[in-house]
């Protein structure tokens, strides 16, 4: 959609008012999550707490997609590459007993950064559909490589990741406890949200939005879009790798499926369903989709069809996603990609 061609809106929405709704979403998420955790703790629940923790881990992958799609205007269909990279790095090193909680996280980031810069050098050079295909291809190559590498468990993946204690100095979090793991993941995802939200409001982040809006014009203002896109790509990769590193700590194993197209595509669907370019929307989207998948999956094995149909309905009737329902009027950063492509 090109707003230049639309009718002039007589009343400009006040920006502060426009954001109010989304701000409520930001506050509501930890409140709802803590309520959920309390109930779970009282009831001694395990299954749903661990499922919710997984939803939060996948929300990290969705945030990574949103930075690229919602802010930079880049659709990556291979973001699972970095999620899997983080997961495998953590699983491998933890399985060897080489590192603890912090070591696993830092190693994932240390590996994701150079890989992202290298892959970004190739991918960012290409535009539009070629960028999409290259990100897709890179993830496929990485998945197949792992699939065929015996040292990384091949098609079986890596198992036997020990249950960890995360040492925070003042206190320790027992990752064997579903409640504690959930709370840790909640803190991590809210921390990521706040950090990324801050970053997207700095001159750096605003330049990314400008590139999404009109890359051609950005060059004539004195910015090199390529550098900004590469930086965004590296940031996104690190976010995906960080959440990926949490995965084996929760599930105790990793497998090549973590890098498959389905993971990448699910993350894009999560972002569109939650609200492109809002950061908070994809977090809700992740919880909603994991929830839907589990509920529908317990009824029928054909749940993918239902989710597909629901996704189409969602795109038609709430094109700005869950977060869009809480916005009063169109705002820049939340410009819906699904509408434009």
């Amino acid at each position: 959609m090109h707003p230049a061609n639309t009718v002039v809106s007589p009343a400009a929405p006040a920006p502060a008012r426009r954001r109010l709704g989304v701000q409520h979403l930001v506050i509501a998420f930890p409140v709802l999550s803590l309520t959920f955790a309390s109930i779970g703790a009282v009831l001694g629940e395990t299954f749903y707490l661990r499922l919710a923790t997984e939803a939060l881990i996948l929300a990290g992958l969705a945030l990574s997609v949103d930075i690229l799609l919602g802010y930079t205007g880049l659709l990556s269909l291979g973001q699972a590459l970095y999620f899997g990279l983080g997961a495998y790095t953590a699983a491998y090193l933890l399985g060897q007993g080489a590192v603890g909680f912090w070591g696993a996280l830092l190693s994932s980031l240390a590996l994701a950064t150079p890989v992202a810069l290298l892959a970004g050098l190739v991918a960012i050079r290409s535009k539009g559909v070629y960028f999409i295909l290259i990100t897709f291809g890179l993830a496929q190559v990485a998945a197949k490589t792992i699939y065929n590498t015996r040292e990384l468990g091949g098609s079986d993946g890596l198992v036997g990741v020990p249950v960890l204690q995360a040492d925070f100095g003042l206190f320790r979090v027992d990752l064997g406890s579903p409640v504690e793991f959930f709370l840790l993941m909640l803190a991590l995802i809210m921390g990521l949200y706040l950090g990324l939200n801050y970053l997207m409001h700095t001159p750096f982040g605003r330049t990314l939005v400008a590139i999404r809006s009109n890359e051609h014009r950005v060059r004539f203002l004195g910015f090199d879009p390529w550098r900004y896109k590469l930086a965004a790509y590296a940031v996104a990769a690190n976010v995906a790798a960080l959440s990926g590193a949490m995965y084996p700590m929760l599930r105790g194993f990793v497998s090549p499926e973590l890098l498959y197209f389905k993971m990448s595509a699910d993350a894009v669907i999560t972002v569109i369903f939650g609200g492109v370019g809002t950061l908070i929307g994809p977090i809700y989207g992740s919880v909603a989709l994991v929830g839907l998948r589990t509920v529908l999956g317990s009824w029928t094995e054909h749940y993918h069809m239902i989710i597909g149909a629901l996704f189409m309905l969602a795109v038609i009737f709430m094109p700005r996603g869950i977060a869009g329902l809480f916005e009063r009027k169109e705002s820049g950063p939340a410009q819906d990609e699904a509408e434009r492509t």
Partner: protein
Amino acid sequence: MNAPAAILEVENLRVSFGGLKAVNDVSFSVQRGSVTSVIGPNGAGKSTLFNLICGAIAPDHGRVRLKGNDVTGWPPNRIARAGLARSFQITNLFFDLPVEENLRLAAQALEPSGKLLRPKRHSQRANAKVRELLERFELSHKAGELAGYLSHGEQRRLEIAVALAGEPELLLLDEPTQGMSHGDTADTSRMIRELARDITVLLIEHDIELVMGLSHWVVVMHQGQKLSEGPPEQVRADPAVRKAYLGEA
């Protein structure tokens, strides 16, 4: 460099698209503090000339010097940093962003890159620049509106304001009055005159009266070549120009 007062020197610039010589051996210079205009009929190569100067396309032959530095082949972002800004004939804005944000992005180029990760409200200089331009271009009341929702005239004003936000030394205006009403054209003409007090302006314009009233120097292009150049009165009197352009207009 032979003329130290020249902010821009174009030497033997040439570029072809396929078999078409879009710009063929064009040379001229722009004196600091002047308003220089490039005129010519449609297809004369004016816009291509602009694209060559600002780095959007690379010439097949020839040199572009900005403030004495050879900037031939530099990418547009580097040329912009060196002090050249441009507006576009077809409005080229961030349509899905607020007016204010359009200007802030452009003004952000003034900030050292070390401030890239500071919150935007901290960039005092850029914010002051945004406020100043909003007032100067009478867009203050539209600051929060999406650029795509502005009227055509407002968008043309914003186009120039965005180009000015980075505090360029040389401003290239590509048909700033394109599609404007008579009254708006007069306003724009007044505004360019005001601008020219602080910076150097290179202008592409169709409106001959506007050009003749504003410019210190006029370059006439015809079929990719420079037909004539000189002060407005001299160009107006040039028989070759009258034949090729003014006579037909």
